[in-house]
């Protein structure tokens, strides 16, 4: 079946299954992570990163706005960097990143594990892995 043919089918005929929803989620979460990272970088620049942080540290903060990522910089006062506001931002980014990443791992695994049993096992393990990493990640974020 050619790509143009399947695209001409209506959504109802194609069916709205889980894989299709995850395809959409991967793209939307990618865009959302762009927004989160830009937001964190702008926040860092507004809180004094222009004078007190080097480029690599701004990137570290941008990719995960956790206060331990600015501990080694010249930032004089760490209080504004560990507010619930930034912890919530970091938690949102963590949830998006883990869901996006674990689904990516499942997609890669599907290229090599092709039996129904194997794929079911991959899915069960991936859900367990995802929940574990979200739990540990949130714990680290809210206790640091």
């Amino acid at each position, binding site marked *: 079946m050619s790509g143009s043919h399947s*695209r001409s089918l209506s959504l109802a005929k194609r069916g709205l299954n889980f894989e299709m929803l995850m395809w959409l989620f991967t*793209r939307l979460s*990618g*865009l959302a992570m*762009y927004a989160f990272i830009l937001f964190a970088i702008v926040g860092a620049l507004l809180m004094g990163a222009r004078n007190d942080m*080097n*480029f*690599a540290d701004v*990137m570290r903060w941008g*990719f995960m706005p956790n206060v*331990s990522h600015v501990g*080694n910089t010249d930032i004089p006062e760490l209080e504004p960097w560990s507010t619930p506001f930034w912890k919530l931002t970091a938690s949102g980014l963590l949830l998006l*990143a883990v869901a996006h*990443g*674990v689904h*990516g*791992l499942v997609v*890669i695994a599907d*290229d*090599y*594990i*092709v039996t129904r049993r194997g794929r079911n096992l991959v899915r069960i393990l991936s859900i367990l892995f995802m929940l574990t*990493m979200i739990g*540990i*990640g949130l*714990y*680290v974020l809210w206790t*640091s």
Partner: protein
Amino acid sequence: MGLRRNVSLTTALRYKGQGTFLTYILHRIGGLGMAIFITTHILASFLGGKGGVWVNTIYENWLFQIFIFFCTLFHAVNGLRIIIVDLFPKLITYQRETLWIEWAVFLPLFGFAVFVITSTALGV
């Protein structure tokens, strides 16, 4: 069964779809690199202690930062290209041009980052 390739990696890269195949491979390497990095980094931060601190010092090494920044930036730039092409399917006609734009965006950004990280690390 799944692991068997019809052609070798080098043949695939020389094949007509070379540009997209290269970005596809690099997208996977970047994604896997980030997944491994983030998993071990979160675990190391959680466990702490000597082992955790040792693992996290690797992540503060400038050579590792260049590697992980390559993974992240390439995955982000290529991902944005995929999103744009998927949201506007007519653009698939210009796939080759989207690849040129992608490299034109990625290479200066990555080059700048490598320059800044290297000069900061070496104290130049």
